[in-house]
């Protein structure tokens, strides 16, 4: 079966293959992280047709025909996405392990809601975990990427 990953057509022989495992170990796209395997931490978040999805809880068959974007597919030829840039400007990271998941969730949010309130940002990111505790910075980064608070 075929699917698009970061704009490229890819073959996936086994529809039951876990989506996170497929991305990381079959395609080598290791920017998407394993954090809990239960859909509870958000580290594995990718976009499927623009919507955030916990890849650890999905399989290749479930997203067949869809267009998948991972952190490696964000931004265009050498220039960062505004959300990535905002994370850098706000120093919204420590160990960085959770950050790709947060960025994907934030991009998904801004697609739906280009000028979210602080509260909307918090709600949208409330099931992404950062154990280093950089939440305030992440919130500020998303608001900055949206061009300021609503």
């Amino acid at each position, binding site marked *: 079966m075929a699917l698009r990953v970061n704009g490229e057509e890819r073959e996936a022989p086994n529809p039951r293959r876990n989506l996170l495992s497929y991305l990381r170990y079959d395609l080598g796209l*290791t920017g998407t992280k*394993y954090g809990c395997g239960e859909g509870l931490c958000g580290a594995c978040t990718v976009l499927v047709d623009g919507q955030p999805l916990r890849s650890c809880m999905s399989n290749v068959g479930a997203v067949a025909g869809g267009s998948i974007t991972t952190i490696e597919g964000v931004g265009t030829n050498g220039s960062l996405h505004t959300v990535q840039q905002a994370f850098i400007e706000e120093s919204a990271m420590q160990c960085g*392990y959770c950050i790709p998941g947060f960025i994907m969730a934030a991009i998904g949010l801004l697609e739906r809601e280009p000028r979210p309130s602080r509260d909307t940002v918090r709600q949208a990111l409330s099931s992404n975990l950062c*154990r280093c505790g950089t939440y305030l910075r992440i919130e500020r980064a998303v608001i900055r990427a949206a061009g300021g608070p609503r």
Partner: protein
Amino acid sequence: MRDAGLSIVGDTAPGFPARQGYGTRAYGNTSPGTPLARWLLMRPDGRVTIFAGKVEYGQNIRTGLAVEVADELRMPLSAVDVVLGDTDQTPWDMGTFGSQSTARVGLQLRMAAATAREALLELASQRLDLPREDLVMRDGSVASNADPGRAFTYGQLVDGQTIEREIDEEVALTKERDFTVMGSDVRRIDAQARVTGRAVYAQDVLRPGMLFARILRGPSFGARLVEVDASAAEHMPGMVSVVRDGDLVAVLADDDESADRALSVIQATWEGGARGSKIDIPGILAETKRDPVAVQETGDVDEAFRHADHILEATYYAPHVSTLPMEPRAAVAEWDGDKLTVWAGAQRPFGLRTELAGMFRVPESDVSVISMEIGGGFGTKSWYPTGAEAAKLARIAGRPVRVAYTRQEDATEGTFRPAALIEIKSAFGTDGTITAWQCEAIHAGPMGYIAQRGAQTPYAVRDVAVHVYCANTLVRVGSYRSLGAAANHFARESHVDEIASTIGLDPFELRMRNLSDARYRSVLEAAASRFGWQSGVPPTNRGVGLSIGEDVGSYVASCVELAVEGREIRVRRVVTAIDCGLVVNPEGVRNQVEGSTVMGLGGALYEAIEIGEGSILNTSLSRYQVPRITDSPEIEVVLTGDPGAPSTGAGEPGLVTVAPAVANAVFDSTGQRVRELPLKRQLR
């Protein structure tokens, strides 16, 4: 093997045990005849590479060390490259813990960079035929003061040369007023790799021909494997082999899911192991306390208690908590003949190398451990059995093997913060002067240094007796941000608040009345002032609380505002003042204190492991609550350190004041004195 350019070599960082006999055998990049490790290399292209055995797990040490070197060398930060935690390339290091990276290795690298600066000045002096006083260094060049057009870049100065200099420990370090980078807010130099997914963690290491392993784990602590039947696994698709090596039983497969499936059909029989669902950890601590250490003993507390106006006795308890870094442990091992390479997320890469060399009876020089970016450590990744597991399996399989823990496995095979039971008895006058202080702190596990951290009282009390003890533990305990200091501070700062309420004195006033140390007084004043602390405001559902602390040589004070609604505690605002001496990167310190605050709130409010039937019941994130973005309060960090004082740690101190300040604010709001963490479980 010598690289072109200017190398600066030296001993391991000052203050580390290398000075007391670890000696030169321990250096990572030591080859015979070059007993000193290389700390810095100025390359002919004008870039400088610095080498440190520390690892990066979020504390931003890569940027911090680069900043220090850029300033000493008068060159742009963008021209500094940093190599960390690689036993083949970096100086030996004991491990990344105890907030020592800036304090010790940072100082060593500043001396190395200053030594390089002096060597570059000498080279320029010869090339320009000018005395050194007539030269100026700026932006990676040395120029004539009189004629700035006469200049050489650092690259030009070292081009074609291979020079080695030893660190000059007497070298003049750059004065604070001449800092151009240090002390100003600097963004992480590794930020772009983190936001693009290019930062490589141990979980991300994939080698050609690599097998995916899963290891069979016992059902309860201490259970012994009696029999194993792996026949159902052996012919499953994707399976390569089932390995049994003593107690280690593992499946090796071509991909991760095949390994998961094969593991799930193995039939194993276990015997022994812990049982029982009602486990009384405070009781175990009290019954098994041993190895007393007198942390503080002055005067005669018994005598003081006999003449006291007031006496207060109370017992405090902090449970085991899960460290839970976002990245579960992982390691990939690869053998080439008798040479072993392990990629891991270990906080002690050199310690892991020693362990592996001993295990396989090969010289340390044949073992390479490379610590990758680490997805959170907080102390627990000093314990890294994953490396040896991967190395054993790779040896048996004859192929590279990846061992990557699941979330649950990382909890059960990792370490927990020791539970602690702390009894405090104090005597004090009606004016609030504390006259006697007796503290008996029992921390789970065999490591006395954990219990000692933060056990002493900072108050100017004449008669003091503080003892700490080790005790039995059901779970594996280990390092956790600030070690025992979090529990010790919770007990002490809660108790001091109880003294204040007993005599009706404001908690800020009470502390000031008993503090003589200027650094404690100044952080407390700074936090209270920024917070807008007001004495004598009657309790409402808005509670305020404060606490002070010291950890790894840094002084902290926190003020907290919260609201209690039923059994919900909503922390709204936290102000923490920190004095960690010279601040290399204020942005880095603020980020660390904010993070410590959030982590501290988890332990204060809801984190605790549950033990039943000999195992940990809440290893899943569905049953173990950690702080979320929706729980994060406003956090303000006030930096009060004297830039003339040596840098001390910033990664841990911000945590120690959180739980007591929150508990004190809960008391302020509700009148309930909760002496047991996590607070939410105890609230009536």
